[in-house]
């Protein structure tokens, strides 16, 4: 990947915020501005319903005064003095600063902008959405579909008192379909979505997923309470496993001792087939970037290699506290403070196809979607949920949809001791997660 020196064309607004903060006694200051314009085209009940234009702008200031960190944010670009005042007030009480803002430096060249996205006329977006709904209804005329075709352009700029300057643009295009098929008291929900920094004109893969879901759910099946082998599709991996897995990789949870992985850096915790990394330099993914929200250059960070824990994710402040290297995962939240968040998370695929994973199971489940998976003791790695969309496997084949079933497990234990196989292909789920299907040897299943 080519590296480039960013033209440090200082944004006068950011420069002014920093100058005012320094004049008022701050030792370090950092200003950040995000401007987003998005245009979702929204379909409801199989028809075009709404066109929206949304402009969201925010200005954030973080500063260090007398060794303490303060921050503030505002959507009023005109009231800089109030912004500085609020950040200084916060610093009076704020946490001790462990960070140094990064100086001017070289950033990797990460393509995140496609001018065809903002250039896409609304009527062409309507055509994409209408086509998607038409094809879905061809698969099942009784579906009632909601859908969206969405385009957005975002500009991100940052500057700090150490001379660091960054600015980049990002375009985002996404398409999604959500269908419900009601028969008596029974509701079947199907759907999928796609997103990219580039224009999507053919959402065929959404229809392939919906076709699979409708086919597998065309009959109903039952299962009794017990422990079974389970295949999570990529959608299932995203809905059940990734949340409780990733909180454990936050450098802050590790530093605070909350993460079950806290003392296990360098240890083999998971099955040797597990490889996981975060890579914000992948071209044209909606969370790719040249640097994070603190100006730390993007790079691929390996988290798990052959089951071995390699790294955690850090922002500047946490890295300072934990005496670790910042990894470029600072994410600006409400209020101008920075939290830790993955960018593009990738799990390596294995050898077996989804069908082959299923063929190896005598009796078990396939899970596409859980509801309620994010409740409970997520920090400990627990997940559990009602199977919103899942299927029964008998003698190596999907025989029908199962309902009124709850599954529960601990992601660290399952990936450590109960992995049957990692399948292929890995696919992007949502904007920034690329995962394969995964088969587990045993999962607790409660059925009525």
């Amino acid at each position, binding site marked *: 990947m080519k590296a480039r020196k960013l033209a440090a064309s200082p944004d006068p607004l950011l420069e002014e915020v920093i100058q005012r903060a320094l004049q008022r006694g701050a030792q370090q200051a950092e200003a950040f501005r995000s401007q987003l314009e998005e245009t979702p085209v929204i379909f409801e009940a199989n028809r075009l319903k709404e066109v929206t234009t949304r*402009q969201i702008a925010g200005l954030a200031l973080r500063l260090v005064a007398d060794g303490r960190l303060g921050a503030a944010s505002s959507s009023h670009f005109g009231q800089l003095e109030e912004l500085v005042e609020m950040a200084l007030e916060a610093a009076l009480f704020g946490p001790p600063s462990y960070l140094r803002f990064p100086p001017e430096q070289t950033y990797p060249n990460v393509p995140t902008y496609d001018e065809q996205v903002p250039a896409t006329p609304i009527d062409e977006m309507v055509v994409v959405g209408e086509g998607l709904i038409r094809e879905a209804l061809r698969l099942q005329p*009784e579906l009632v579909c909601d859908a969206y075709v969405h385009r957005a352009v975002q500009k991100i700029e940052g500057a700090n008192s150490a001379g660091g300057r960054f600015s980049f643009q990002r375009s985002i295009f996404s398409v999604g379909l959500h269908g419900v098929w009601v028969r008596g008291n029974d509701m079947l929900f199907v759907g999928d979505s796609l997103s990219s920094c580039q224009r999507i004109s053919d959402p065929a893969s959404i229809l392939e997923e919906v076709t699979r879901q409708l086919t597998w759910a065309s009959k109903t099946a039952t299962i009794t309470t017990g422990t079974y082998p389970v295949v999570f599709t990529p959608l299932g991996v995203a809905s059940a496993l990734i949340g409780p897995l990733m909180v454990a990789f936050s450098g802050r949870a590790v530093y605070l*001792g909350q993460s079950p992985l806290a003392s296990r850096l360098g240890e083999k915790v998971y099955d040797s087939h597990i490889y996981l990394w975060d890579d914000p330099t992948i071209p044209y993914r909606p969370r790719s970037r040249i640097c994070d929200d603190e100006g730390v250059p993007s790079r691929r960070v390996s988290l798990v290699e052959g089951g071995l824990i390699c790294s955690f994710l850090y922002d500047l402040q946490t890295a300072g506290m934990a005496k670790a290297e910042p990894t470029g995962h600072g994410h600006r939240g409400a209020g101008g403070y920075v939290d830790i968040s993955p960018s593009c998370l990738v799990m390596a695929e294995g050898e077996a196809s989804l069908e082959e994973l299923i063929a190896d199971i005598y009796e078990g489940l396939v899970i596409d979607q859980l509801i309620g998976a994010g409740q409970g*003791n997520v920090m400990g790695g627990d997940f559990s949920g009602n199977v919103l969309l899942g299927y029964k496997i008998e003698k190596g084949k999907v025989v029908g949809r199962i309902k009124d079933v709850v599954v529960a497990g601990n992601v660290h234990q399952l990936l450590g001791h109960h992995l049957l196989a990692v399948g292929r292909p890995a696919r992007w789920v949502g904007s920034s997660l690329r995962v394969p299907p995964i088969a587990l040897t045993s999962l607790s299943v409660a059925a009525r």
Partner: protein
Amino acid sequence: MDEDTLRQEILEALRGWDVDHLEIRLDNTAATRILYRGRQLEEIGRQRSFGGNVRALYRGGWGFVSFNEAGDLRRWVELAVAHARFVGTGKSSFAEVEPVVDFVPPYLGKDPRLIPLTAKKELMDHYLDILWSVPGVTSAHIFYSDSHKRIILANAQGTYICQERIDVTLRIGASAQRNGDIQQASLSIGSLGDFSVVEGLDEQVRQLAQKAVQLLDAPYVKPGVYPVVLDPILAGVFCHEAFGHLSEADHIYENPRLRELMTIGRTFGPPILNIVDGASVPGLRGSFRYDDEGVPAQKTYLIREGVLVGRLHSRETAAKMGERPTGNARAIDYRFPPIVRMTNTYIEPGDATLDDLLSDIKEGVYACNWYGGTTSMEMFTFSAGEAYMIRNGRIAEPLRPVKLSGNVFETLMNIDAIGDDLSFNQGGGCGKGGQMPLPVSNGSPHIRIRQCLVGER
């Protein structure tokens, strides 16, 4: 800009457009946040935000535009109108309501705006000290926030409402860890405009920390179907998840099969079951005088004596279904159009005591407090923060937190006893359509469900 000039500008921007409905909403918010993780204060400070939106309806099609810089309002109106005219090809359905001009001051107890940031921080420091004073606690978190919102809603029919609200929330949690096993316990509290609800919590804070430590020794429940008794907090979450969302008309108004399923007059539960939603109950977190479409707050019976008698509407869903608007169109902020939401949702009290509910259960689960809940309309799941086995009519050994799941239609029918001790939980926030967390409250007395699927985590 002074009030009168702003008002003139808004009225001027709304004038003279050929659409079926047109409104402008402006939102000015000042907020305070204090966040601790572990032993550290991580965030403290204030935020300001200003934004607005324009919504237009033309021949059944909606145009919506939101912005931070109001600038020339008429320009935003023009864009929203253009979007609506692009979309609209049919017929608009939008229930008429009397135009209103009103100013609604905030509902206030002890005004959080008058408490200095130092005092708020000292109180939270004090709670943090209590958490860490409990032996065995290995981590802690505290998140306090308050916000003051001032919202102006004006429409082309002559409505001009300026409504203020102050929201206070506090979430405190502790966790305990042993050999890689982590357990946690937490407390969520909220109020409409009253700082005093977050004061004087020392004993509750100490107990939740002790609870987290004790959970390390508690067993998991054996997954399966049990009779369960829910405490008022969890029963309120159940009522919200299992039935509240299903009664939101925007899920069903465009789907003939779902409309059939939700026919008024259908029996959903036993005759002892009454479920209500309403923002007109004063002083709860889901309370207001007007919703975000200018419809006055009401009290709506959803289930009366087990029978479906009503549902929650926006002006559009009400018109499409030929029913009256209920004042349930709410938007979390200026970036979103209002959608059908709950306000204060509760199960009305019956006459049983907790002992009555427990007495004839040989083996069951008593589930209390909440981590969260979610629904897909037909299925729901919600998590208890605290649980105990019930053995021979008595609350017995503690369990690790459990998850209750089920099918709405079966589970409501399985409610067989309702307590006499209605209370409201004000600490929750509801999410729908990307709009989260919206202030709501849930209420219920203790309830018993004859058969419920209980999962172990």
